[in-house]
């Protein structure tokens, strides 16, 4: 739709007026509501700020781990929290939760062990080697880590996303979203944006599942903003990816478990993904 320049300036003025329209102050009493539970909240330990961002550097990791060990030894009576076992070979005696994956924000590399989902439901349990952390393969949207519907983990080579789709994106640009189809498998196999191999029945997390593998089709209708397909509300696929989609039915609907890696590395990634998915269990139905 063509808009003349002077019309456009007028429209921009009206747009700014509309954007300015709204409250400039928080509601009365809101501050107190926020602060009331703060004193009782559990917090991250202060020593966690000293751990390295890039855990792929072994020398830096060891040096920092040693420094942390010294700090924690000194401060252990004050913090009353034991140093976590960061060794890849150590066998943990209890599950971690996914909000404790490494340190801090998504993409931080974590320790080996069994993990239970923190927010994702139904709650799942799985085992990872060292080098995995929360986050997707793509930089994506900052801070979108684990939610009740989406649990992404990555080792930098590829990612595994355990998701419960709440919408599927219509082909084409923009934010238009469609409801999840009744038969997700039929929808996937018929999706013109996907080039998939034959479906196979497998057992996953002790349940019947269906798996398909493939790539985006050559003429996939990519979103011009992102140069990607938004398969579901949480799953983003790019032309360079190869992926395996696994569907499991649970009480609250279909779960879609996606293993994604660049196509030229997918065969390297596949066994690591297989090992993690082989350990997958449901803690709650």
């Amino acid at each position: 739709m063509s808009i003349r320049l002077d019309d456009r300036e007028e429209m921009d003025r009206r747009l700014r007026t509309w954007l300015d329209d709204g409250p400039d102050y928080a509601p009365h009493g809101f501050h107190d509501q926020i602060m009331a539970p703060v004193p009782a909240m559990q917090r991250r330990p202060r020593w966690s700020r000293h751990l390295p961002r890039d855990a792929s550097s072994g020398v830096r990791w060891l040096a920092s781990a040693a420094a942390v060990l010294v700090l924690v030894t000194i401060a252990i009576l004050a913090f009353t929290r034991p140093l976590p076992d960061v060794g890849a070979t150590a066998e943990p005696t209890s599950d971690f939760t996914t909000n404790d994956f490494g340190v801090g924000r998504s993409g931080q590399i974590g320790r080996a062990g069994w993990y239970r989902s923190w927010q994702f439901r139904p709650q799942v349990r799985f085992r990872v080697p060292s080098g995995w952390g929360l986050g997707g393969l793509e930089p994506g949207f900052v801070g979108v880590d684990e939610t009740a519907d989406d649990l992404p983990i990555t080792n930098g080579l590829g990612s595994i996303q355990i998701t419960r789709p709440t919408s599927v994106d219509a082909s084409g640009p923009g934010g238009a979203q469609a409801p999840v189809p009744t038969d997700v498998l039929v929808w996937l196999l018929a999706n013109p944006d996907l080039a998939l191999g034959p479906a196979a029945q497998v057992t996953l997390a002790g349940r019947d599942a269906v798996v398909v593998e493939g790539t985006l089709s050559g003429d996939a209708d990519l979103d011009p903003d992102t140069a990607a397909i938004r398969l579901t509300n949480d799953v983003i696929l790019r032309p360079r990816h190869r992926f395996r989609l696994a569907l499991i039915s649970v009480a609250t609907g279909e779960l879609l478990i996606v293993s994604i890696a660049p196509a030229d590395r997918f065969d390297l990634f596949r066994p690591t993904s297989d090992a993690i998915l082989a350990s997958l269990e449901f803690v709650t139905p």
Partner: protein
Amino acid sequence: MNATQRDLVERSAGGDHLAFDVLVRSVLDRMYATAYRILRDQESTKDAVQSALWQAWRDLPALRDADRFEAWLRRLLVRSCYEEARRQRRQPIVTLIDPDRYSVADSTHVIADRDALDRAFMRLSPEHRIVVVLHHYEGLTLVEVARALGIPVGTARSRLHYGLARLRDAMHQDDLAPLVREVPA
């Protein structure tokens, strides 16, 4: 960041509730205003701001650089708004007459703008809404927006372009919507 604010951040990171209380007072109004313009709903806004500030309190000890506090807090708020926007999309919408929304003095033109833009804005994806608000309301440059969202500058630019184009289209369409306001159920 000035020395007083840096001191508040450091003391809050160390567990000082009173310092955090002062910090919250200094940022709350701005956070609320920004979140409201993204979510356009009071309850969702309160949930998003509250969630972001609670997350800030929990994670503040791990913040490496106190001077990064504002940018870091903005990222927490953006994340919370994104999650609230997704919850909004899953909730059924009911339509209410909102007689208090528009004053007698409001012109028909302004009313039509508000309604058309409200609807068009809520049809944007959360990603597009957030870029529009951060750039045009918070006044961030595209580089700052991209940094806040962890996306390439080109992606921020294209999201802004798309979002503004949809909003301009909404104003350009010659329809005067009824005086209704859609709210989550």
